[in-house]
């Protein structure tokens, strides 16, 4: 797409990285980034994309020396410096590396509070590169820090953001500060490693806009014509920003090319699988796993093999919406206290008058950003937290909260009915007793807690494992030794063990790679169809919720801002907030037939 560039900022061929003599984690990678160009490196966990980014700065081993990382290349030129030694190893004097780092090339890591020193004011972090790479006086540097803060949108309302420590900033502000720290050395190339992963959708969208702005400079922008290398696991993010994309798998680039081309006409099977797995824009009931495509973890469940892709909605979803609700909440309120700046305890409504109705055999999605009250709502529905007001009925009978006479439903009264209601969590591992094997977990669930010996219920455990697409051998293993997708399958199997009719799924796929996410979503779909389950499905990810839900609830600040039929909400949002969410939600621009 871009015109041939005279001097690429990154010109690397045949980059190979290995640790401690092991198999290479990156092998034979070719990469070039021209000034003003935005290139994306996309891949799932363990594909080697972050290591590649670091290797470009000589930090493959994290910069702690030790020499365990072995980095070789056929060509390795960064910002005009040839850093390839005679033996093919990438090597340079420490001083040269230090000039390149922060000066020619900036690396912006994903936030999660950890990429900024929690003990230093952010201004100092931004100042670092100025101190190291410019000859400005201290006052000059202070002025420059203010300019940079302004450039990333961190000035205004009078507070000196530079004097604050990261703990006092929101996630989005931290990411901006981090970008400012990267820009301060006036780099020719900005490498951003998962810059939006930890952020809420609306915030992430603004960060992406900022990155785009930096590259397409307005007047006085600090980094006109800056090249960008974007690292992400999220194809949707990439499709929004990058001109060129490289798809990585297991240390190798499987496909590369202009973004639009790759998305529109993926050549490699893996790219196709990735694209198919993205739920955005896939109608309810569409299978996300390509038949025959193998995931990175487990084979597709038997149900998936048996059932052809079924675009038609199931009978339940078509007609059951009005029929007797499986789970119904009315006027749920939950108060929490938090401390204000003066240290006083202040009550606030974490959940404020939330009502919903989940029809049997359907899925009700709840979507919202962090702090919107989704999880508290789920906890109240599960009878784990007593609501301060309102009630939850399960199949028409009070299950939690006000049981009708002003008193809350007692746990003892609820306990016999608990088998009807199961739960699946975001992090399956933390919901397992770490001392128990898969078999023990399932035996415990099947027997109602009477035994943990898998032998006692071998047949039923086998059935459950088969149902979630795991083989019977998994019974003897410990969840720790399983992959993320397999763990989530175990969690689902356990939730199914008592024979529930309603499952509450709280961010069940948020921690998973997109291909694994696709498998789990498909599995949930199959189970719903086969077992007639009802789901309360909670997620921050609009695309996922849209894909799985019949009905939708949008939450913000503890309140329901919008609800209704999923497609209706998406196609005709009534509230501004919903529209903002939709706008911020990255979608595959090139391959979104549903749009």
């Amino acid at each position, binding site marked *: 797409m871009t015109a041939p560039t005279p001097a690429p900022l990154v010109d690397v061929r045949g980059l190979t990285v290995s640790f401690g003599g092991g198999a290479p984690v990156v092998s034979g990678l070719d990469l070039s980034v021209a000034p003003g160009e935005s290139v994306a490196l996309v891949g799932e966990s363990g594909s080697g994309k972050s290591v590649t980014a670091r290797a470009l700065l000589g930090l493959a081993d994290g910069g702690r020396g030790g020499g365990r990382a072995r980095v070789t290349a056929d060509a390795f030129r960064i910002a005009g410096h040839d850093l390839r030694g005679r033996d093919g190893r990438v090597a340079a004097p420490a001083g040269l590396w230090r000039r390149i780092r922060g000066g020619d090339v900036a690396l912006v890591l994903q936030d999660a509070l950890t990429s900024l020193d929690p003990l230093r004011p952010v201004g100092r972090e931004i100042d670092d590169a100025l101190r190291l790479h410019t000859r400005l006086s201290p006052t000059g540097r202070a002025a420059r820090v203010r300019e940079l803060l302004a450039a990333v949108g961190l000035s205004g309302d009078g507070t000196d953001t530079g004097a604050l420590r990261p703990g006092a900033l929101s996630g989005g502000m931290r990411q901006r500060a981090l970008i400012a720290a990267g820009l301060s050395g006036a780099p020719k190339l900005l490498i951003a490693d998962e810059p939006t*992963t930890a952020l809420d959708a609306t915030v992430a969208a603004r960060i992406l806009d900022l990155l785009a702005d930096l590259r397409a400079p307005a007047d006085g922008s600090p980094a006109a014509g800056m090249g960008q290398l974007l690292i992400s696991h999220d194809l949707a993010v990439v499709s929004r920003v990058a001109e060129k994309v490289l798809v990585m798998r297991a240390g190798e680039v499987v496909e590369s090319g202009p973004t639009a081309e790759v998305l529109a006409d993926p050549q490699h099977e893996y790219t196709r699988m990735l694209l198919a797995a993205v739920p955005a824009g896939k109608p309810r009931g569409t299978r996300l796993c390509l038949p025959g495509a193998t995931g990175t973890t487990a084979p597709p469940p038997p149900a998936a093999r048996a059932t052809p892709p079924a675009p038609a909605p199931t009978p339940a979803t078509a007609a059951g919406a009005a029929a007797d609700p499986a789970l119904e909440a009315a006027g749920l309120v939950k108060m929490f206290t938090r401390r204000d700046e003066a240290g006083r305890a202040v009550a606030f409504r974490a959940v404020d008058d939330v009502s919903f109705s989940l029809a049997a055999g359907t899925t009700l999605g709840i979507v919202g950003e962090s702090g919107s009250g989704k999880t508290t709502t789920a906890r109240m529905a599960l009878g*784990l937290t007593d609501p301060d007001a309102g009630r939850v009925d399960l199949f028409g009978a009070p299950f939690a909260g006000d049981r009708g006479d002003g008193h809350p439903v007692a746990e003892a009264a609820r306990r016999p009915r608990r088998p009807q209601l199961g739960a699946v969590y975001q992090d399956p591992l933390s919901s397992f*007793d770490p*001392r128990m094997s898969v078999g023990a977990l399932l035996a415990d669930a099947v027997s*109602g*807690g009477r035994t943990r010996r898998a032998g006692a219920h071998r047949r039923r455990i086998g059935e459950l494992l088969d149902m979630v697409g795991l083989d019977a051998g998994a019974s003897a293993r410990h969840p720790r030794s399983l992959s993320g997708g397999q763990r989530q399958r175990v969690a689902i199997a356990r939730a199914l063990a008592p024979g529930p009719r309603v499952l509450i799924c709280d961010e069940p796929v948020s921690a998973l790679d997109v291909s694994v996410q696709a498998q789990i979503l498909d599995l949930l779909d199959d189970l719903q169809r086969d077992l007639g389950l009802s789901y309360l499905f909670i997620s921050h990810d609009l695309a996922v919720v849209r894909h799985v839900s019949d009905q939708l609830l949008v939450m913000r600040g503890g309140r329901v801002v919008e609800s209704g039929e999923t497609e209706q909400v998406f196609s005709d949002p009534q509230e501004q907030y919903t529209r903002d969410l939709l706008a911020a939600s990255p979608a595959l621009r090139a391959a979104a037939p549903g749009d």
Partner: protein
Amino acid sequence: MSAPRTSSTGSRAGGRTRAAASSAASNLPAVAAAAVVLFLAAAVAAPGWLAPADPLGIEPAAAFSAPGPGHLLGTDESGRDIYTRIVHGARSSLTIGVAATGVGLGLALLLGVPAGLTAGRRGRRVHPRWVDASISRVLEVLFALPGLLLALVFIAFAGPGVTTTVVAVGLSTAPGYARIIRTQVLRLRDAEMVQAARVLGRSRTRILLGHLLPNALGPVAVLATLGVGQAVVWASALSFLGLGAPPPAPEWGAMLSAGRTYLSVAWWMTVFPGLAIVAVAASATVLGRWMQRRAEGVSA
């Protein structure tokens, strides 16, 4: 723990390489610690097998023999063999250490579990919050009387002796354990694992006994391992101060205390029992850290 919702490529690689490096470096200490533990186990189980002589048997003529072929680690003022006494002393020294740790843990459980269960975060009416409040106060008070001081105060009241030493050292280690148990219980109480068990319909008692306590005690077991080493040191400190096990029992601290008198003529009487104490404390540390790393590997 704070942000499980992130892609995991970033920090994990660094952590893994670091762990690999440190495990390589810590292999030797671990092997040494294991050897010490094996030796001690043998000394406790069958001291006569490792050292057939009588630890109390005197031989005035052989008093103050320097370490050599006849007496590997020399003899003391009454001609008793230091090696024999160290081996036979392992039982009493370690028994005191283990018993003291047991006393400490027992007390800590009594304090820490109720505190952890009632520590109020969500304002539950079911839990009397004052239980945690008062236990926390008690712990604060105990913390203000650190280590040996608490033990000494206890001895001031109860008089010196082995039993007193055990209780005194146990008492002074209890607050540390209690706080950790409290934190563990508090952390696990609201953990997803416990939620999951509740969703599956398990009763409170069942969750407490079946999930909460066993998992809360895991890290405590690690600390207890470290603690046994510390307890041996403290108990021997009390013996050294003349407030612990009475002579001629071959208790290490008491041996050391007796040996100090003859420091200028028989250094081996001081150095070797001391080394035994150091070996126990150091291998307890190495072992405890190894367990900790393993436990972390389990939960990470």
